[in-house]
């Protein structure tokens, strides 16, 4: 279970805003208990935007600075009430798994600008609070917003609860606790079994101390039918570690499943599985054109965390002809718009590789797994923009992690209403810690304003933290944006961003003392 609060954080950089929030119109819980923000019947009329069962996932740190992940589903009634649900979570350090926990009740509030909070009452894990930003009525950016944990993730309308995976799938998994990452492709028979699995992984051998990177790892597995909340279980037989990984899965719909490991012994991994579609044989042509990407993982620098984002262009056959990447690894100097190029290939099963040539970043070797060209990876119920792309697993001796690559067709600067979510793991006074926030971003004529709910685990939650800033196109690197944000207390986060065709932007902090990864997504007007 997630442990009682213990430490501190927010960053070295800014959000000492906790000390001056009244000036921002915000409030802070100061780490004293949950800060749910209310909800329930009779609240904002915007509550009607959320009506149905939603699948959610988050990854972050608990109050003991231990990596945890959680996935689940909950039913919202459109009037501010959570009527039921269930969830699975693990805490890596405590070897604790809370599997199939019931969400018995709860409340939520959606403010008129789309940001809000939800309070979930669970059978085993007590009360949890999520802060969220409604990107559209089917998709939310979320963070856990209480003093037991902080994290970032998403919540999506569940479009089918009784489906089982069928056909070809790609998946990626990341375990921050154990420096373990695994990605691959699988074929589901549509009833109970995965076959033809082939994966790639990196794992620290605890005996030798070496990081072992393996490709062409045979994978098999099985799965059970989902319950009324779209939850089922998956057993993945990973011959690369000669063991089985047990997962709970939660269906978003027939093509997307959120996974959280529940065996409590082999590893502590979480991720997602996406359909490859029904378009037939895949090839390098499947990943042809311009792409924005992100990646998050662990590395061998001072704090051991690396975030990156960028863009690349492929020729449709074998080459990554151009690109740029931002990398922040906590080493005191963020890399911005570093040129990348290289080679790539995609097999008929949708599995392939991207190998970048760069002397300024850790980004070199990636395994890549294509997804359905009709699927939006970051907003699965969006069927019109940002479709296709691939999942990424970084497999370098210097860094490992997971990410995504999404088609990039728009490189304009932002204008209008957006949601923003940031995850900033870091170190404060020597201890490992994390801050997450989620909320609004309004962009107009190069200026940005917004309001976020921020959780600095160990310090406390901060509601309705206002910020201002600037955003603009990088004049020398087409497709790259530069974002700068400040609260009344100082810098919130500065970041480079790469925009995809859906108007969503992958962010990597450029601050010298803050490693942060994040996303901006266009918010539907209501």
């Amino acid at each position: 279970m997630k442990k009682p609060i213990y430490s501190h954080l927010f960053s070295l950089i800014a959000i000492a805003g906790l000390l001056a929030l009244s000036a921002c119109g915000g409030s802070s819980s100061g780490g004293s208990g949950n800060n749910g923000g209310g909800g329930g019947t009779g609240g904002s009329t915007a509550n009607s935007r959320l009506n149905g069962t939603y699948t959610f996932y988050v990854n972050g740190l608990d109050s003991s600075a231990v990596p945890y992940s959680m996935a689940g589903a909950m039913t919202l009634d459109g009037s501010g009430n959570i009527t039921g649900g269930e969830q699975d979570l693990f805490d890596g350090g405590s070897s604790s798994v809370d599997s199939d926990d019931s969400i018995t009740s709860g409340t939520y509030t959606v403010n008129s600008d789309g940001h809000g909070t939800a309070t979930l009452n669970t059978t085993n894990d007590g009360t949890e609070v999520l802060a969220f930003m409604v990107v559209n009525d089917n998709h939310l950016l979320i963070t856990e917003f209480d003093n037991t944990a902080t994290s970032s993730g998403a919540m999506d309308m569940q479009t089918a609860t009784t489906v089982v995976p069928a056909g070809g799938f790609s998946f990626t998994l990341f375990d921050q606790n154990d420096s373990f990452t695994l990605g691959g492709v699988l074929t589901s028979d549509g009833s109970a079994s995965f076959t033809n699995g082939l994966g790639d992984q990196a794992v620290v051998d605890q005996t030798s101390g070496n990081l072992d990177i393996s490709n062409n790892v045979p994978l098999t597995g099985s799965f059970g039918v989902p319950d009324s909340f779209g939850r089922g279980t998956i057993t993945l037989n990973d011959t690369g570690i000669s063991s089985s990984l047990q997962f709970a899965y939660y269906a978003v719909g027939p093509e997307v499943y959120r996974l959280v490991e529940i065996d409590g012994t082999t590893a502590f991994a979480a991720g997602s599985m996406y359909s490859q579609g029904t378009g037939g044989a895949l090839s390098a042509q499947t990943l042809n054109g311009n792409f924005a990407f992100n990646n998050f993982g662990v590395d061998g620098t001072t704090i051991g965390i690396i975030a990156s984002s960028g863009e690349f262009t492929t020729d449709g056959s074998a080459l990554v002809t151009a690109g740029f990447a931002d990398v922040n690894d906590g080493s005191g100097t963020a890399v911005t718009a570093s040129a990348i190029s290289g080679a790539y290939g995609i097999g008929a099963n949708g599995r392939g590789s991207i190998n970048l040539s760069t002397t300024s970043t850790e980004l070199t070797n990636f395994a890549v797994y294509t997804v359905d060209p009709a699927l939006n990876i970051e907003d699965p119920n969006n069927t019109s923009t940002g479709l296709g792309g691939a999942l990424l697993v970084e497999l370098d001796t210097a860094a490992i992690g997971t990410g995504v690559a999404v088609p990039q067709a728009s490189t304009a600067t932002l204008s209008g209403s957006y949601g923003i979510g940031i995850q900033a793991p870091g170190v404060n006074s020597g201890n490992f810690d994390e801050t997450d926030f989620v909320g609004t971003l309004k962009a107009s004529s190069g200026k940005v304003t917004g309001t976020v709910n921020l959780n600095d685990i160990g310090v406390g939650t901060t509601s309705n933290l206002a910020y201002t800033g600037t955003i603009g196109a990088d004049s020398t690197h087409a497709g790259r944006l530069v974002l700068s944000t400040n609260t009344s207390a100082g810098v919130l986060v500065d970041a480079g961003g790469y925009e995809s065709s859906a108007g969503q932007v992958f962010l990597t902090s450029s601050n010298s003392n803050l490693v942060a990864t994040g996303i901006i997504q266009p918010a539907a007007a209501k």
Partner: protein
Amino acid sequence: MKRLAVIFCLFSFLSLAPFAAPSIANAQSTAVKSSLPVRVYASSREVTLQATVDQIVKSPNKAMAPGGHVILATPSGRLDGAVGPYALNSSKNGSKPLDLVPGQRVTVVGVHSTFGNSPIFLVRSINTGSGTVNIRTKNGFLINPSMAKHTTKVSNFGGAR
């Protein structure tokens, strides 16, 4: 706690498993980047040093790299040894693996690196004479005290994708 076994032989044939990525990608995977940026831990640059502990810094100032520091006196001068967030302040995870005092003689293994524009020594292990404390894996990843509970080993399936 489950320990995962090595199975080198069983799947060795899989190094020949077909994979459809173009040969250029495979060739590239072995040709790219021979040297990492100096800020990144590279085992090829690893050195072993005899030193004396000069100072322990559990809460660094903002000019220093995040995490704990062991300031070392070496024949070539003082060295800022970065030991990460866990080694000196691991009570969160129930243990305190690194207990040093000024004046103590140690042998450190690590890599000369930089934090911003300042030199730093990324410490992988410290031997105090009575034992060795591993702070990073051989490729430089920080060892989370909770990590060792979940031992994993892999087979060698070959590297070409």
